């Protein structure tokens, strides 16, 4: 290319750059797209969020058909055992019983299964959260809340990333984060004479892992959470405020899951 020609090309490039420098200022970030179910996608399990609420007990049987046959017997037994729970037992005591131990084994199996089985696992955790006492008392004792938080964390570690891209698990995944925030906030605020900083640190680390990339960007889960529940999660907050927004939203969405069986 001759000198004059090359100079002209550079001049045109400079003009293009100047125009582009003005145009890019109008670039905006659109609202995140929520995964849309394909026709018939949710026919077998419509309104999956209902399964997580207190009224979801009546729909638990719908999940019998989607649980793999290897786990079906344990599934049916466990959900029946949870239905029979009376008197709001302490979570730590109940989970130490045979049916509690069976629940933990079943959760592990379901979480490695299909998306419907993952929903079943989450529904069981929410049933435990609604039917047992995990709220720390006046004199501390955050172990129950920590244990429940651990169950939710295990589920989230496996399904959070996939869940926000799945029409079936989208709302349940966000609900799981909200309940996790509420449970860990209760663990943090346990006791009359001080807060449990370790619970807060554990929760902060978990949420940071779930909601930010190593490069500091927000994950799809954090974006979906901000879109669906604006202001609920603020990862920039250093103090317990990081959990309070989640706890408030969870209290609105699941008033019975308060650690005292809604009493």
């Amino acid at each position, binding site marked *: 290319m001759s000198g004059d020609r090359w*100079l002209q090309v*550079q001049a045109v490039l400079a*003009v293009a*750059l100047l125009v582009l*420098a*003005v145009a*890019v200022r109008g670039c905006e970030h659109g609202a995140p797209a929520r995964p849309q179910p394909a026709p018939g996608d949710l026919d077998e399990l419509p309104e999956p969020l209902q399964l997580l609420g207190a009224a979801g007990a009546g729909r638990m049987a719908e999940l019998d058909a989607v649980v793999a046959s290897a786990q079906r017997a344990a599934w049916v037994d466990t959900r029946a055992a949870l239905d029979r729970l009376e008197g709001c037992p302490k979570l730590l005591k109940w989970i130490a019983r045979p049916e509690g131990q069976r629940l933990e084994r079943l959760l592990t199996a379901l979480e490695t299964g299909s998306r419907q089985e993952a929903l079943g696992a989450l529904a069981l955790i929410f049933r435990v959260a609604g039917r047992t006492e995990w709220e720390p008392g006046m004199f501390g004792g955050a172990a129950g809340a920590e244990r429940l938080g651990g169950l939710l964390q295990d589920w989230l570690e496996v399904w959070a990333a996939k869940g926000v891209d799945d029409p079936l698990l989208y709302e349940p995944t966000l609900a799981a984060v909200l309940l996790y925030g509420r449970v860990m906030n209760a663990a943090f605020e346990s006791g009359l004479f001080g807060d449990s900083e370790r619970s807060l640190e554990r929760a902060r680390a978990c949420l940071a892992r779930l909601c930010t990339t190593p490069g500091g960007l*927000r994950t799809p889960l954090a974006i979906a959470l901000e879109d669906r529940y*604006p202001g609920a999660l603020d990862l*920039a907050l250093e103090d317990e405020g990081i959990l309070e927004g989640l706890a408030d939203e969870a209290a609105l969405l699941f008033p019975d899951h308060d650690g005292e069986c809604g009493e």
Partner: protein
Amino acid sequence: MSAGASRRTDDGAARRLVLACLLIGAGGLLLGLQRHADGPLIGTGFAALGMGTFVALVALLANATAEVRAGHGITMPRDGLALLSVGAGFCGSAFLVAGVLVPGGPWMFAEALVLLVVFARSSAPGTASDAGDGPRVGRGTLLLLGAMLLFRLWVTYQGCQREWAAVQVDVPLLSGMEWLPDSLRSVSLIEFTAAEFGIPESGLVFSHTMTLWALGFALAAGGMWLRQRSSWEYENDRVHATISELPPALASLVERLIPEEDWRREGLHHLSDRQRRKRISAMTEERVRRQLELREAFRAAAGAGRAGETGTETEFARDVFGAIERQGALPAARTREERGEET
């Protein structure tokens, strides 16, 4: 750019001028972007750019006014490359100003007012550079812009940390009382909102955004500096090309009569070819006349010095006379024989 212009002028200056425009464009591009916390690059908005354009326009007008007052009249770019240079200079000023202004709120107007004054002062009579070159950014202005960029980076960092004030000062004694509300325990100075500073609700990736802006500022400022130098050289090349149309001996004489450092001051930049030729002819005539007048003055001084006029007998007068004489500038004193021949 016209083919004639590129034929006439030295390629080096033209290339540097285009490179400067590229740098300004690239700098403006980076200054217009920020990294959203969700990952994509988003724009910084048009509000600050609008303010930057206004400041650049005022600077351009102030410069043009100063040029008129200096007696040069309003000069215009005469070819495509000069036009691109002026456009890039205008855009570069707007980009630099927009890049350092906070993106909204009362602070943006306060900062814009300061920059307006600074740009207008830098274009005052006596400091004017060249209206035909577009707005210029001097060293002092650049320092001020750099300080303002630092302020913008600081408040953006604060915003990314969800601290909506530039400075928070703890109140002695009260700051330790955690049961008091925050508003009593500390005093916030220069408060702002996320919307005022164009920070999305979900935040920015500060490290990436800071890199973009700092790099953009450096490129745009560097481009402006290079453009100012290259534009001067480019116009000098055009003048030189016109003089070179003369026969070599005559061209050499004209360049001695009108040295290169006078070209800009004498208004030879940004003229059309016809105007430049006429101006060079007029200047040649004026300077030759001045030379002749000077020779006459030398002759008169020689006569006065040798005749011992009143005032030339002091040591100072003898020194000056001697200095002129030593340079051979005075006509030689005529010998008695020469005078006798005349009689």
